[in-house]
C-alpha cells in the first residue's frame, strides 16, 4: 500500500504547494541512504594516514546504517581492509563488521567467506581476536545454519593453537557459543579423529594462561546454557581447577562444578584415599563449601551463592555446614547455641554467666579431629562471619533457600540467622530478617531467640523495624510469656518511635490472630481488669492501648470465651475501633450483638463466583447492543457503568476488572454523547458555544485512555490496541470539532496532517492486530487512506466524521489479572495545624511516606507533585533508592521533598500528591544499532504526561521573610 500511496503522491506533485515542501524533505531523507557507503568510500580514500582513517571510521560508527545499505558498506570496508597496513585501523574495521552483521534484517552469511578469508592472512593477534569476535556475531545471527556453524567451529579449532591468549579466548568463546554436540568429522589431515567440542574445550582447562583457562570454563558453561549435556568426566577436571592460582579460574570452576552436580546428582564418585563412595552432589557440595573459605572474596561470594541452590544434597551434609566442632585444648566444647538451648530446656535461663561456664568437657581423640578436609563442616559458620558483607549476604541468601526446602535445616539455622540480626551492616541485618520471614512457616521461636529478635526492635533504622514487624506477623511463638514479651517490646518500640504506629498495629493484629490460646490467659493482665474492682477506663486515643486492644480483639475472633473477660468499656471501645480501624479489628461475635458478617468465602475461584458471572453478563449485554436506538444505548451504558462501579466497591478482587471496563464504557458513552450533540446539525456560526461539550468529551476520553493504558498492571497487548483505537477516535472527534469551530483552512492543514500521521503510526504499531479490528473506525479509515492523503482538509474532516458515526463499538477482551495502581500517602498526614516555618528562599525538607500498589516500575514512573497556592506546580523525581519493595505488587516510597517559596504573609497550604508519569512512545520498537546510544536514553526518560493517582495531602507551610 505504501508504494501505491507514494505513486499517488508523486502524481499530484504540482497541485498543492504546501505538500511539495513536505515531500521534498522526505525525499531527501531517502536519497541519503544509498549514499552512505559511497560517502564512506570517499572518506576512506581521502584518508592520508591511518589516524585519519580511524577518525573517519569512528565517526561513521556513530550513525546507524539501514539494513539495505549494510552490504554495500561491508564491501567498502573489506576493500579497505585488504589495503590497510595499520593494525589499529584493521581492528576497527573488524569490529565494525561485527557490529554491522548484527543489524536487524541483514543476513550476514555473505560476508562470512570474506571474514574467514582475511582471518587466514591476518598476522596481528589483536585483529585476529576481533575478527573471531565478528565471526561469533555472524554465527549467533544465523543459529539455524548448521553448515556455517560447523565451518566457524573449524576455524576456531584451527586458531586455538595461537600463541596469544586473546585469540585463544575468542576461539573458546566461539566454540562455546556455536559448537554443537553432534560430532563432525574434520576435513584436515588427522583423518579418523573425531572432533568433540567438549573434549577440545576441556583440553584448554590446563592452558598456561589463566585467562584462557577461564575462557575455557566459561565456554563450557555456555555450552551447558545452550542445552548441551556436559559429560561427567568434566567433573574431575573442574575439581582440579578449584586449586588454581587465579581467582577468576576458581570462580568459574565453582560454577562449573555446580552445573555438573545439578546434571548428575545421583552418580557415585569415590572419595580419594579411601574406599568409600558418595553421591556426586554431596561431593560437589563439600567442595563448594570448602571454597567458602577461599582466599579471594569473589570466589567466596560465588561459592556461597551457589550453595543455596543445591537442594538435592543429603541432609547429613547439609547440617554439617552449621557445625564447626568446637574444641578447646583438645577437649570438646559446646557452642554458645547449644548452651543456650540447654539452659532454656533446663529451665534456668536467667542465670548469669560464670567464668568457665564454657569450660570444655570431654577429651577428643586427636585422630578424629579433621581440621580441613571435612568438606561441608562449618561452611556457613565461616560464610556468615566473613569480612566482606557481600559474602555474608550471599551466605544468608543461601541459608534461606536451603531452609525453605528443608524444615529440619531451618530449625537448625535459626540460631545463626538470629545472630545475623546484629551484623554491622544494615543491609545484612535486613536481609537476614527477610530470610527469617520467608522460612517462618517451618520454625517456632524459642524464648531466648525471640528475646534477641525483639531486641532489634529498638534499631534506629525504619526499614529494619518494619521488616521485623513483618517477621513478627508470621512467626510462631511457643509460650504465653513469648507473646507478652513481644507485646511489651512492641509497645516500647511504639513509645520510642511513634511513627511506627500503623506497622505495629498491623503486626499485633497478626500476632493476635495466630496465637489466640496464648493471648487468652494474658487478657486480664493486659486489660488490667480486676475481679472485684472496676478499674479506670484507659484513654481511647492512646496508641499503646489501641495496640493492646488490636491484639486482644484479633485473638478473640477465634476464641469465643475471651469476650467474657472484657469489661464494659472494652465493648464500647470495640464498637468504636471496629468503625474507625476496621482493617485492624475483625467482626466479633459478641453477646447481645448481631454479627454483621461480610462473609466472603475466599475459596471460590473467580470464575465460579456469581459476582464474576454478573460482571461477564453485564458486559456481554453492553457489547451485544449494536443497533439499539441512541437513547437506549446511553441509558444501558450508564446503568452498566453504575453497576460495575458498585461491584468494584463490593468485591475488592474484581475491582480492577470492573473499574477497567467501566472506564472503557464511559469513554464509549462520552463518544456517543458527543456525536449526538446538536451541533452537527446546526449551521456553523451557531454552534460555537455548544462545541465546548464535544471538545471536553474528546479531552476526557483522551485522559481516560491514558489512565487505562498506564494505571493498570496486567494490561495485555490486545487491550492496548483497543485503548489506542479509542484514543484515535477521540482525536478524530477533536479534529472534526475544531474543523467546525474554526474558520479558515490554514490551521486545518496541520491538524489533518497530524491526524493522518497518528493513523499511520497506529497502523505501524499494531499491524499484527489489525485483523481483529474488523469493521472498526480505524479499519474503515485505513481503507480510505489513499483518498484521504490526497483530499483537501475539509473533505478529510467530512470523511472522518461520517466514519466516526458509522463505526461500531469494539469489544474489550478482559485481561486475566488486572489491578489498578493506587497510592496512599501516609506521611504527611495533613492534620497538623502548626505550619512548617522556614526562611523564604531557603528550602525545607518534607518527609513523604507512601505505599504504592500495583505500580509497575515505580522507580521511573512515580513522581511527587507539589502545588503551591499561587498555582505553581513542581514535579519531583524521587531517587530509585527511595523505593522499597516489601512484597509482590507493593512498593513503598520514603523520600524527602524540598519545598521553597518566596515570603508569605500568612501560612498557607500546599498540596502534595503522587503522579504516574507515562510515555506512550516507549512501545515503539527500536533498532539495535541505536541501542545504548545517547539518543535512546533521552527518549526513555522523557515524560509525555502524568496521571494523578493518589489523594492529595495538604501541608501547612509558612515561608518567613529573611531577617537581615
Amino acid at each position, binding site marked *: 500500500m505504501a508504494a501505491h500511496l507514494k505513486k499517488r503522491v508523486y502524481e499530484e506533485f504540482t497541485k498543492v504547494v504546501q505538500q511539495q515542501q513536505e515531500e521534498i524533505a522526505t525525499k531527501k531523507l531517502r536519497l541519503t541512504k544509498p549514499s552512505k557507503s559511497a560517502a564512506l568510500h570517499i572518506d576512506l580514500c581521502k584518508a592520508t594516514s591511518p589516524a585519519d582513517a580511524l577518525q573517519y571510521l569512528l565517526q561513521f560508527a556513530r550513525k546507524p546504517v539501514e539494513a539495505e545499505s549494510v552490504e554495500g558498506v561491508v564491501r567498502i570496508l573489506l576493500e579497505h581492509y585488504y589495503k590497510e597496513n595499520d593494525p589499529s585501523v584493521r581492528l576497527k574495521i573488524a569490529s565494525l563488521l561485527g557490529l554491522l552483521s548484527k543489524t536487524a534484517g541483514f543476513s550476514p552469511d555473505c560476508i562470512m567467506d570474506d571474514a574467514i578469508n582475511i582471518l587466514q592472512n591476518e598476522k596481528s593477534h589483536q585483529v585476529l581476536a576481533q575478527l573471531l569476535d565478528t565471526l561469533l556475531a555472524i554465527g549467533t545471527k544465523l543459529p539455524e545454519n548448521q553448515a556455517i556453524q560447523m565451518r566457524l567451529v573449524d576455524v576456531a579449532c584451527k586458531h586455538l593453537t595461537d600463541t596469544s591468549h586473546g585469540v585463544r579466548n575468542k576461539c573458546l568463546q566461539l566454540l562455546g557459543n556455536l559448537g554443537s554436540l553432534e560430532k563432525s568429522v574434520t576435513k584436515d589431515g588427522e583423518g579418523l*579423529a573425531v572432533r568433540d567440542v567438549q573434549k577440545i574445550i576441556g583440553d584448554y582447562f590446563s592452558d598456561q594462561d589463566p585467562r584462557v583457562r577461564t575462557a575455557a570454563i566459561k565456554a563450557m558453561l555456555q555450552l551447558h546454557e545452550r542445552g548441551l549435556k556436559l559429560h561427567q568426566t568434566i567433573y574431575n577436571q573442574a575439581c582440579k581447577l578449584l586449586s588454581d592460582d587465579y581467582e577468576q579460574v576458581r570462580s568459574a570452576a565453582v560454577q562449573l562444578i555446580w552445573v555438573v552436580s545439578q546434571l548428575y546428582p545421583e552418580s557415585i564418585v569415590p572419595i580419594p584415599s579411601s574406599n568409600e563412595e558418595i553421591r556426586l552432589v554431596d561431593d560437589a557440595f563439600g567442595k563448594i563449601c570448602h571454597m567458602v573459605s577461599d582466599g579471594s572474596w569473589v570466589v567466596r561470594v560465588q561459592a556461597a551463592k551457589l550453595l543455596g541452590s543445591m537442594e538435592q544434597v543429603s541432609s547429613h551434609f547439609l547440617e554439617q555446614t552449621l557445625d564447626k566442632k568446637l574444641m578447646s585444648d583438645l577437649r570438646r*566444647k559446646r557452642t554458645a547455641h547449644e548452651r543456650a538451648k540447654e539452659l532454656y530446656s533446663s529451665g534456668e535461663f536467667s542465670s*548469669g*554467666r560464670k*567464668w568457665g561456664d564454657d569450660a570444655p568437657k570431654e577429651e577428643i581423640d586427636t585422630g578424629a579431629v579433621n581440621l580441613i578436609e571435612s568438606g561441608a563442616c562449618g561452611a556457613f559458620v565461616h560464610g556468615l*562471619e566473613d569480612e*566482606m*558483607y557481600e559474602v555474608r549476604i550471599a551466605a544468608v541468601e543461601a541459608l534461606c533457600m536451603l531452609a525453605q526446602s528443608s524444615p529440619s535445616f531451618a530449625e537448625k539455622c535459626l540460631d545463626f540467622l538470629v545472630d545475623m540480626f546484629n551484623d554491622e551492616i544494615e543491609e545484612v541485618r535486613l536481609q537476614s530478617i527477610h530470610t527469617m520471614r520467608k522460612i517462618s512457616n517451618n520454625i517456632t521461636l524459642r524464648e531466648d531467640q525471640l528475646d*534477641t529478635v525483639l531486641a532489634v526492635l529498638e534499631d534506629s533504622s525504619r526499614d529494619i523495624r518494619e521488616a521485623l514487624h513483618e517477621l513478627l506477623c508470621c512467626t510462631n511463638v511457643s509460650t504465653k510469656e513469648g507473646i507478652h514479651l513481644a507485646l511489651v517490646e512492641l509497645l516500647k518500640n511504639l513509645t520510642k518511635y511513634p511513627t511506627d504506629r500503623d506497622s505495629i498495629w498491623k503486626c499485633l493484629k497478626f500476632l493476635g490472630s495466630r496465637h489466640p490460646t496464648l493471648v487468652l490467659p494474658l487478657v486480664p493482665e493486659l486489660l488490667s481488669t480486676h475481679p472485684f474492682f472496676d478499674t479506670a477506663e484507659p484513654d481511647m486515643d492512646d496508641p499503646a492501648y489501641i495496640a493492646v486492644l488490636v491484639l486482644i480483639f484479633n485473638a478473640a475472633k477465634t476464641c469465643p470465651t475471651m469476650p467474657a473477660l472484657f469489661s464494659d468499656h472494652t465493648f464500647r471501645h470495640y464498637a468504636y475501633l471496629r468503625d474507625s480501624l476496621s482493617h485492624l479489628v475483625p467482626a466479633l461475635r459478641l453477646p447481645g450483638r448481631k454479627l454483621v458478617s461480610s462473609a466472603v468465602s475466599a475459596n471460590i475461584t473467580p470464575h465460579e463466583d456469581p459476582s464474576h458471572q454478573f460482571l461477564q453478563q453485564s458486559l456481554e449485554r453492553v457489547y451485544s447492543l449494536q443497533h439499539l436506538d441512541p437513547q437506549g444505548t446511553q441509558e444501558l451504558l450508564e446503568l452498566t457503568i453504575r453497576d460495575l462501579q458498585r461491584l468494584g466497591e463490593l468485591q475488592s478482587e474484581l475491582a480492577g476488572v470492573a473499574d477497567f471496563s467501566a472506564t472503557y464504557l464511559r469513554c464509549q458513552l462520552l463518544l456517543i454523547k458527543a456525536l449526538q450533540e446538536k451541533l452537527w446539525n446546526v449551521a456553523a456560526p451557531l454552534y460555537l458555544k455548544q462545541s465546548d461539550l464535544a471538545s471536553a468529551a474528546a479531552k476526557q476520553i483522551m485522559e481516560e485512555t491514558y489512565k487505562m493504558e498506564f494505571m493498570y498492571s496486567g494490561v495485555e497487548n490486545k487491550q492496548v490496541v483497543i485503548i489506542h483505537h479509542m484514543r484515535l477516535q477521540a482525536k478524530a472527534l477533536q479534529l472534526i470539532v475544531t474543523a467546525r469551530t474554526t474558520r479558515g483552512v490554514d490551521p486545518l492543514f496541520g491538524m489533518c496532517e497530524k491526524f493522518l500521521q497518528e493513523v499511520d503510526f497506529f497502523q505501524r504499531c499494531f499491524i499484527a492486530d489489525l485483523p481483529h479490528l474488523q469493521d472498526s473506525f480505524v479499519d474503515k479509515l485505513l481503507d480510505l487512506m489513499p483518498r484521504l492523503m490526497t483530499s483537501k482538509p475539509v473533505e478529510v474532516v467530512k470523511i472522518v466524521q461520517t466514519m466516526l458515526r458509522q463505526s461500531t463499538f469494539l469489544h474489550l477482551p478482559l485481561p486475566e489479572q488486572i489491578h489498578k495502581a493506587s497510592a496512599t500517602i501516609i506521611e504527611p498526614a495533613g492534620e497538623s495545624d502548626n505550619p512548617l516555618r522556614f526562611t523564604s528562599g531557603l528550602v525545607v525538607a518534607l518527609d513523604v511516606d507512601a505505599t504504592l500498589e500495583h505500580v509497575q516500575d515505580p522507580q521511573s514512573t512515580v513522581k511527587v507533585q507539589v502545588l503551591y497556592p499561587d498555582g505553581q506546580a513542581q514535579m519531583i523525581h524521587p531517587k530509585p533508592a527511595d523505593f522499597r519493595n516489601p512484597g509482590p505488587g507493593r512498593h513503598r516510597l520514603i523520600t524527602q521533598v524540598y519545598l521553597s517559596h518566596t515570603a508569605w504573609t500568612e501560612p498557607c497550604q500546599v498540596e502534595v500528591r503522587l503522579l504516574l508519569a507515562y510515555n506512550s512512545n516507549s512501545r515503539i520498537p527500536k533498532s539495535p544499532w541505536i541501542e545504548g546510544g545517547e539518543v535512546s536514553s533521552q527518549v526513555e526518560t522523557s515524560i509525555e504526561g502524568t496521571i494523578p493517582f493518589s489523594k492529595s495531602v495538604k501541608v501547612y507551610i509558612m515561608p518567613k521573610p529573611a531577617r537581615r
Partner: protein
Amino acid sequence: MPEIRVTPLGAGQDVGRSCILVSIGGKNVMLDCGMHMGFNDDRRFPDFSYITRNGRLTDFLDCVIISHFHLDHCGALPYFSEMVGYDGPIYMTHPTQAICPILLEDYRKIAVDKKGEANFFTSQMIKDCMKKVVAVHLHQTVQVDDELEIKAYYAGHVLGAAMFQIKVGSESVVYTGDYNMTPDRHLGAAWIDKCRPNLLITESTYATTIRDSKRCRERDFLKKVHEAVERGGKVLIPVFALGRAQELCILLETFWERMNLKAPIYFSTGLTEKANHYYKLFITWTNQKIRKTFVQRNMFEFKHIKAFDRAFADNPGPMVVFATPGMLHAGQSLQIFRKWAGNEKNMVIMPGYCVQGTVGHKILSGQRKLEMEGRQVLEVKMQVEYMSFSAHADAKGIMQLVGQAEPESVLLVHGEAKKMEFLKQKIEQEFRLLPDAKKPRLLHGTLIMKDSNFRLVSSEQALKELGLAEHQLRFTCRVHLHDPRKEQETAMRVYSHLKSVLKEHCVQHLPDGSVTVESILIQAAAHSEDPGTKVLLVSWTYQDEELGSHLTSLLKKGLPQAAS
C-alpha cells in the same frame, strides 16, 4: 638444596619474647624483638649474645623485621638497637611505627618510674631507635639489599599487624607474627597469596582450639551491657589501652547508634587518646565496613564515647566506662571498681584473661569478699561477667593460612609444645602431599638475555639462534606379552586393543608393522629364547611421559583374550 636455618631466641615453644633468627641464602634476618612479661631480670629480653659476643650486631644482621606493636614482639627493640648496638634497618608497617613508641614509652615509665629499675633504656633511646625504622606498605616489595627482599601482608590481630615474606633468590620464608583469620569489628582477616614459600613460620597460640562464632560472643556482650544500662546500672569494662579496647568501643558505639541509646560511655584517658588518634588515621588498615563508611564518618570519631574524668564515677544514672588496666590490679580501673562494687545494679565485664593474684582473677573465680590494702574488706555485690575476645587464629584458621600459602614446610612457634604436637600431626596428615612448587612443566618459551636486554622467544627459535641441537630424551620400555602368534598379528591385536581403549587419541597402524599412539611407538618382536612370548618395545619422548606411562601400564595388564 636450599639451606634455611631458623633459631628462635624466644617464643619458640612458649609465648612472649618473640625473637627468631633466620638465615636464608647467606642473609641473616631477625624477626621480631620482644620482651617477656613474666620476668623482671635479664630473661625478659632475648639473649642477643647468641648472635655475637663482641662487636656490633650490625655486622651480623642484614635487617630486623617487627610484625606488630605488642610488647612481646617489639619490647626489646630499644635495648637491642641502642644498648646492645644495631644500626641496620628495622622494618615495620606504618601503624606499628606510629604506635610502637607510645607503648615503649609507657613500658619504660612503668619499669623505671614505678618499679625504679636502673640500667633501663631511656626515652632518648626509644627516639633514636625509632629513627632506624623503615616503614613499609602492605604488599610493597622492599629491596633490603641486592638479594634480600621483603614484602608485608595483612594479618588482622591488631592495627598494623603484618605477615612478612622474606625472599633471597628463589628461596623464601613467610613469618606470620600474630594473626587472625576471622575478621572483627574493626579489623579484617589475615590474607596471603599463594606465594609457595619454602618455609612458613606461623604462630600457634590456639593450636588445639576451634572457636565458636564471634557473633554469639558479641551478642552476649551487648545484651549484658544493654540490660545493665536499662536497669540504670553502671558498667565497668577493664581493658588494655590498645587492641581489644578499640574493638569493644566500636561495638558499643555502633550499638548505641543503632539502638538510639543515651547513656554515656567513657574511656579513661592517657595513652588511649593518642592511640585512638592513630586508629583514626590508619583507616586503610581496618575492615571493610570502616573503610567504606569513613567518607561519611570515621568510625573512630566516637559520637557517644567521651573522655573520662575521675569525678564522673560518682555521677548518678547509668554509664559505661572503659578503664585501664585490664586485670583490675591497679590504677583507674581498680579505683572505679571499688566505688561501684557495692551496688548490685552495676556490672563489671572482664573481656580477657586475668593473671592469678589480680583482683580480676579473684572476682572471676567467684570470690565475693575482697581484702584490700589496709585490711579493708570490699564486698562485691555487682555482677561479674567474663567474655573472651581474642584475636589469634584458631586451629582451623592456621590450617586455612597454611592452605592459602602452600608452603613446602611449616614451622610452628609462639605456642605450647604439647599443643604444637597436635597441630603438627594435623598439618602432616592433611597436607601430606605438600604441593611441589617447582614441579616440572613443559617448556613454553625461552627468555634470552643478550646484550643487556631480554627477549621471550619460542623454544625452537631459541635453539636455532643459539645453534643448539634439540636434545631428545626418550624412554623405552619392554613389555613381555605371552602370545604364540606371529609378530604381525600381535601388533595387530595391540593396535585394535589400544584403538578401543584410547578413544581420545590417534592410534595408527603403520605399514612396517609398528603401532603409534600420537608420538609413541610400539613395536612387537619375538623373544629370542621363547617364541611363545613377544616383546613389545614401547618408546616415548619426555614430553609424552604421562601418556607413555599410562600406555605401558595398560599393556602390562595384557591384551584381552581375542574374541575370534
